[in-house]
């Protein structure tokens, strides 16, 4: 199967600032891709280039095998859901959704019927004659989605679409977005800085930092086997400790020797340890520095006796008898340790 979107060696500068640096990416038909990164990572710039609102300094964008690098937004098979939704405030919801078809010259009866149908798909069939300002945030979000989907784009681009919503509504809209995407089968490209949102939605996560792609793959892979230090700490928490590979499958850290996956013997590396892979048990003697009760678990910061400078994060059972200052013994689930470049 050929890729729907191929981005080759894309770079972009704003004056002195290099906002995208040699980015390459492919997007499969029907996939849900999430571009994840902190602000300033270049994710929104990449989306703008995909949508045709920015021309890259260098590099190419192919959509459906066609070079779209310099094609204006109107002519490319993409549609964008804007962060502020950009619903036309003087038009009814129905006219907003029908706008793209009207621009194509679709007859009125047809476009109104299609708009109504699309509003039903997003669960807003009753809102056809309302004005955008009469709707709630979540409803506006769905209108923006319908307006973009009704022109049947090959790729739907969403720029922080849930950013303006409160936490509870966000989680609810995530489920709906995913359901709508499965229903219409369009490829979605979604920009966010919220890693939970990324993991909940994505088939394919692209982690970005400083204009580069740090890591990409399925959320399970990116979380479970992060490729870089940045990914290991941005997608969930990790303790990163320096280590020496003593022999293949065995590393020495400041607080002990652990079995791991393969690594070149004799090299200096880093080991990333997820908090949930640290349990109470025999092995590492440590002192508890901080305890934060999280309801279903306790987030504990412990300093190993052998290396008191290191803050080892652990996710312990909610009823674990730990208090600040108490001595504990911890063990690592060594199969889950991730070896990173030093």
């Amino acid at each position, binding site marked *: 199967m050929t890729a729907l979107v191929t981005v080759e060696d894309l770079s972009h500068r704003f004056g002195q600032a290099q906002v995208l640096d040699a980015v390459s990416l492919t997007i499969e038909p029907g996939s849900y891709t999430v571009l994840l990164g902190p602000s300033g990572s270049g994710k929104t710039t990449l989306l703008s280039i995909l*949508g*045709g*609102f920015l021309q890259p300094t260098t590099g190419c964008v192919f959509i459906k095998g066609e070079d779209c690098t310099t094609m*204006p*937004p*109107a002519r490319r098979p*993409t*549609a*964008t859901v*804007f*962060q*502020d939704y*950009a619903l*036309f*405030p*003087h038009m009814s919801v129905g006219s907003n959704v029908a*706008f*793209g078809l*009207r*621009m*194509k010259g679709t007859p009125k009866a047809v476009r109104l019927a299609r708009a109504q149908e699309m509003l039903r798909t997003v669960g807003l069939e009753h809102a056809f004659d309302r004005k955008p300002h009469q709707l709630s945030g979540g409803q506006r979000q769905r209108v923006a989605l319908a*307006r*973009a989907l009704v*022109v049947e784009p090959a790729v739907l681009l969403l720029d922080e679409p849930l950013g303006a919503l409160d936490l509870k509504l966000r989680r609810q809209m995530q489920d709906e977005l995913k359901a709508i995407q499965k229903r219409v089968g369009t490829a979605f490209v979604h920009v966010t800085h919220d890693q939970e949102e990324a993991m909940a939605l994505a088939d394919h996560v692209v982690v970005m930092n400083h204009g580069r792609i740090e890591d990409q793959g399925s959320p399970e892979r990116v979380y479970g086997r992060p490729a870089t230090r940045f990914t290991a700490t941005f997608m969930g928490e990790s303790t990163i400790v320096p280590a020496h590979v003593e022999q293949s499958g065995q590393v020495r850290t400041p607080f002990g020797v652990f079995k791991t996956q393969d690594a070149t013997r004799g090299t200096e590396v880093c080991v990333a340890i997820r908090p949930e892979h640290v349990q109470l048990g025999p092995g590492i003697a440590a002192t508890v520095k901080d305890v934060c009760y999280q309801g279903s678990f306790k987030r504990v910061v412990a300093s190993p006796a052998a290396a008191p400078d290191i803050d080892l994060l652990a996710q312990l059972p909610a009823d674990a008898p730990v208090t600040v200052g108490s001595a504990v013994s911890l063990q690592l689930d060594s199969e889950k340790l991730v070896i990173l470049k030093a």
Partner: protein
Amino acid sequence: MRAEPFSAVRWASVTPALLWTLVFFAVPFAAMGVASLFPKGEAGPSLSDYAQFFANPSYWRSLTNSLEVTAVVTVISILLAYPFAWILAFVVPERWQRLALMLAVLPFWTSYVVRSYSWLLVLSEGGAFNSALLHLHLLSEPIEIANTRAATIIGFVHFFVMLLTLTIYANLKQLSPNYRKAAADLGAGPVQAFIHVILPLTLPGIMVGAFLTFVLAIGDYITPQILGGNNELLMPQLIMMQIGRRGDFASASALSIILMVVVSIAYLACARWLKIERA
């Protein structure tokens, strides 16, 4: 809940402004209303100064002149200012916009009297405009523009193009750039995006600008007096003439109140229209 200091403070803060407006605005206005009912040379109160306005064709004519001039000025100014504001907002690079806008309204800072006078320099018989055209052999003899309605209109348009450029520019800039992007994304060409999205969104702002133009132009004495001369009178000229030449305060008051009523009607018309647009 608001923290409420004791109530003397609350009233002390707003009373001076209210009193000032009452004593020096509302009461004088009422005094003018009363004065208009006591025509010069008549013993008792009467409406004869108002009747005079409708009976005397030259008085009536000054109102229609004013309305015609103001309407023409408003339309021309908007037509000239809109594309200019558009260029400033969307064609001029972002970092030059502030400077470009400042330059565009720089002549605002000449005194109002001087601005009209400088158009007189340009438009008078021996002035720059005629000299240039004669020199280029585009004219065989000077044309008379000063002391005509055309001169009044040019002077007004000059002022209101600057004012409307400011208001329309502000209007265009406060629209989210995503509206234009969204329209383009959904297949609208520049013309379609303008007609279906940008124009409707800026229409309320244009109406406010148009109303402002109307109110300021119809009440202005200087521009028609300096540039238009006395060949045809506009309302403010007629009013000033009642005081200056005839010392007739009653008639001047009656005419002022009529002018006020005209402006109020325009306001009501605009306000209603704007409200409908916003719903």
